[in-house]
């Protein structure tokens, strides 16, 4: 069986501006991002025959297809679990194209999370499981659920707030190089971090991602077709989803080892099908709704051992020139929080050599979706 390795490539990326509030609606933003990605690739909308997005995406395939004038669609897929689905949208398109079910795929995410209500404020649409076990006690928000694991992680392994600051700072430093980033002109200092207000102790304001309006998209085609596109292809080298046995989502409190999450499962599959190892990764885009997800993911994807994720961030390791530059566009913490789709497009920019914080000669990039929920990941190469 041929498998997915380098069988497909991302050949187009597109995005709208990012802001706390944009005037246009989500459907219009989706159309703009998708058309920008197709233009970037040099592919006409009428050639698109496959779509993939998130179950939380509000613009459905019918609306998008008729608005931008797609051709006949033969594959369309949606992935669940919020930010855990980001990389899986590309993975599903890659699988469909490699299997012959489609030829030109578009993945996208459009979200007005800045303008819209915070999802946790809804008391009407909560799933009974596991909400009945958590919300009555005031564990209300994703930040609270992850902070619970973060406190235990810090207790068990000696990770500190300085380690979490290292994560926040690296993202902010990259955003300060990226004019499209919401935090482009807002430097972060340790003093600002250490004196900021708490959101859910041990997590402070700067441990939490932004709340952003914006949309992004990318175009996936076969490696053969990719040669004819406008930009150099960025190959999907390996792709994986991950839902570990006895996993409980962000409230992963009821199994042997709550601190071993979906990253470990996705990573096993990802590396099994790859021609290179973690130490060969030039740059990584790691899902960062909350800073502790970075050290946990560093462990999960094999960049360091269990419990070493905090220490890994020391000595500027996550900065340009460090052991593993991460989230080079500013990530969800400082560029835009659009369920991690900007991490995919930033990975493509790095491998094209066009990032605003370019890692010299980068030829391999790991992109991950959210740790702490059923997740997904991509290894990209130029």
């Amino acid at each position: 069986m041929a498998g997915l390795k380098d069988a497909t490539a991302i050949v187009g990326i597109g995005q709208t501006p990012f802001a706390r509030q944009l005037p246009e609606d989500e459907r219009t933003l989706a159309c703009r991002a998708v058309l920008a990605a197709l233009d970037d690739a040099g592919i006409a909308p009428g050639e698109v025959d496959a779509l993939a997005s998130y179950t939380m995406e509000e613009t459905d395939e019918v609306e998008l297809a008729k608005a931008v004038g797609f051709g006949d669609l033969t594959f369309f897929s949606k992935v669940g679990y919020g930010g855990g689905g980001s990389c899986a949208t590309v993975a599903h398109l890659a699988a469909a194209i490699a299997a012959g079910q489609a030829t030109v795929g578009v993945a996208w995410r459009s979200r007005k999370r800045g303008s819209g209500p915070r999802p946790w404020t809804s008391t009407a649409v909560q799933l009974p499981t596991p909400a009945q076990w958590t919300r009555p006690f005031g564990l209300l928000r994703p930040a609270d659920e992850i902070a619970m694991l973060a406190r235990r992680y810090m207790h068990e392994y000696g990770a500190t707030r300085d380690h979490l600051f290292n994560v926040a700072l690296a993202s902010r430093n990259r955003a300060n190089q990226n004019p499209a980033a919401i935090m482009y002109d807002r430097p972060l200092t340790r003093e600002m971090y250490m004196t900021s207000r708490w959101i859910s102790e041990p997590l402070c304001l700067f441990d939490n991602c932004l709340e952003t309006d914006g949309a992004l998209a990318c175009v996936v085609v076969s490696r053969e077709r990719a040669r004819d596109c406008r930009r150099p292809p960025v190959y999907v080298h390996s792709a994986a989803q991950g839902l570990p046995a006895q996993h409980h989502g962000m409230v992963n409190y009821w199994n042997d080892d709550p601190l071993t999450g979906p990253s470990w499962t996705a990573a096993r599959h990802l590396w099994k099908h790859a021609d290179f190892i973690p130490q060969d990764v030039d740059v990584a885009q790691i899902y960062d709704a909350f800073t502790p997800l970075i050290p946990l993911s560093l462990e999960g994807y094999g960049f360091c051992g269990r419990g070493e994720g905090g220490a890994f961030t020391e000595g500027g390791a996550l900065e340009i020139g460090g052991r593993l530059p991460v989230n080079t566009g500013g990530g969800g913490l400082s560029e835009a929080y659009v369920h991690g789709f900007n991490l995919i497009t930033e990975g493509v920019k790095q491998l094209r050599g066009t990032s605003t914080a370019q890692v010299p000669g980068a030829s391999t990039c790991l992109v991950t979706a959210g740790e702490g929920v059923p997740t997904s990941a991509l290894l990209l190469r130029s």
Partner: protein
Amino acid sequence: MLSPVIDPEGAAFWRYAAEGELRVQACAACGEVRFPPRPCCPHCRSFGSEWRITSGRGRIWSYVVPHPPLLPEYAEQAPYHVVLVELADAPRIRVVGNLVTEAGAPLGSVPPERVRIGARVQVVFTGAGLPQWILERS
């Protein structure tokens, strides 16, 4: 305050809690406990289950202190702590709850400096049948 939105598998837990008992679901065939409750046993696939009484004792495995923005009734009591209690009888089961001075006391009734990982706690129940936790006297 939010009341539990109870699903069919969880109903027995809350029924026992209303009677002042902390019980966990256990497989009627192989005896393995599981939480949250679910229709069949992930170890032996039996659909038979029973509700095993626990001692109601445990240790704080982790905790958080939420600050606003929060839902209004929680914001009024913030900052409060939410604890995750590892049950003495079933260490893989870590129950979310609040540490309070006595049954029915407000969420923030124990001073923050008294909360620490590893502290021994004992379950109590509010009048509405919601489990809470008090520090065990040492």
